[in-house]
């Protein structure tokens, strides 16, 4: 398998490797894939509650080089975007940027899934928080 220079670059110098505090309400975590399938991605975001901008993104990936590169690239792309903007990122954009061959398309799909899962987790936490706030407001009246 010949890898594109961009895949090799992300493999050698993966961006934003690490982990964020899962329990923080500002953090959303997406864990997708399965060890039996040979690929697991964990992508995390820290969102500014005022601006809804993703200020920090971290990943770790168990998978082939293309999966590592896809998730590394995904963290780069979502950083600085608003949550809704980040949801607009498509796996086909990743395929294009990294010149992935057809057999590696599912690795990019996984990265898109990871973005959605992380944002979904964050939204779930924060809609719950909003309801709590609202409830408190009602009681205070």
């Amino acid at each position, binding site marked *: *398998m010949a*890898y594109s*220079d961009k895949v*090799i*670059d992300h*493999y*050698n*110098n*993966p961006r934003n*490797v690490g*982990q964020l505090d899962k329990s923080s309400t500002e953090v959303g975590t997406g*864990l*997708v*894939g*399965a*060890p*039996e*399938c*040979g*690929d*697991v*991605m*964990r992508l995390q975001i820290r969102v500014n509650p005022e601006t809804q901008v993703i200020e920090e993104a971290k990943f*770790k*990936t*168990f*998978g*082939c*080089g293309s*999966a*590592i590169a896809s998730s590394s690239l995904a963290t780069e792309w979502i950083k600085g975007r608003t949550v809704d903007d980040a949801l607009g990122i498509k796996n086909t954009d990743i395929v294009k940027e990294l010149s992935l061959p057809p*057999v590696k398309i*599912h690795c990019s799909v996984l990265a898109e899934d990871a973005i959605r899962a992380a944002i979904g987790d964050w939204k779930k936490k924060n809609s719950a928080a909003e309801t709590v706030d609202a409830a408190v407001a009602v009681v205070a009246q």
Partner: protein
Amino acid sequence: MSTIASQVEVPEGVHLPIYMDNHATSPLDPRVLEAMMPYFTTKFGNAASRNHSFGWEAEQAVETAREQIAKLIGTTAKEIIFTSGATESDNLAIKGIAEMYRERGNHIITQVTEHKAVLDSCKHLEKNGYRVTYLPVKADGLIDLDDLRHAIDDKTILVSIMAANNEIGVLQPIAEIGKLCHEKGVIFHTDAVQSVGKVPFNVIADNVDVASISGHKIYGPKGVGALYVRRRNPRVQIAAQIDGGGHERGMRSGTLNVPGIVGLGKACEIANAEMATEAVYLAGLRDRLKAKLESELDYIHVNGSMEHRLPGNLNVSFVYVEGESLLMGINDVAVSSGSACTSATLEPSYVLKALGLGDDVAHSSIRFGLGRFNTQAEVDYVAAKVIDIVKHLRELSPLYEMVKEGIDLTKIQWAAH
């Protein structure tokens, strides 16, 4: 094209890329090439030409090769027939015996970690009214002789069990298998491709009736192989699968590949002379590689029995690291992986799965195939490089991090796709 950055220094005398995939194929020994050369040029005769010296010369060379092979496996030249490689040898043995002994029975026994040439030949026969038992293997890759004993019934005509496995290098107890077959009057075929020339293999001592051999696994040329077919106690008959001029005692028609056959013969002669010392040398390199990996890395798992194993084989799972990403990092070293991501089907190795390994461990496996031309300096470089890359990839691995934090991965609800 950028290359993979690594801090590992290349020792003096080591040339990249390093070839360490000798179960897939092996480099041609220069002595073999030298023996073959005249048969491409001046000695081009057809071994079946009876009327002139060109033919006689070619025939003589073929007979010498037959003797060289026979000597290595403890038989006589008359019991060797030439083929285009072990895939053909396996097909000819299994289909040819099935066809010849159809009156006697329709049951064949093999096992799950065989090469596809054996498994697919058996599958083909299943479509034509034969019954095939695929024996399981134990966690160490060996079959259970009791399973075999119980599987043999009065319709069993053939048992086909490989001598050495091409992925995990595990050596099956062929002498015992052969003995059992002979007690029950069943023909015993073995795919001996990986064991001939590497470990002692003797058709008499090992009670083998039919054996497949390939040139390119023993530092000989590709596209040439042989089939040993026993002529006495018992006499085995094989129905030809390729019809034509009646070459090779009618069992395999086609003009003989004289240069290839000369090369196969020479390769066997060299193996016969050097196997004993080479085996010690390769086992030394293999154990050195294993010790280095184990001293620096945790969560590594050797696949298959270490006791019953080819000297040059090491198959290791670097758990929590996916195999293809590891290959990518060691791209100046030629090895292979059981990972699904490297296979066309996106399925992990069926051999490793047969050992009862989880798919995740199978995905993490690397096969190192050491051979005649590998050096200690190469082994040291490969070990250092693998250690470096595995550490890099484990820093990226969510699974490794979770396990280190004490999380039980089996308790997680994975979104399998």
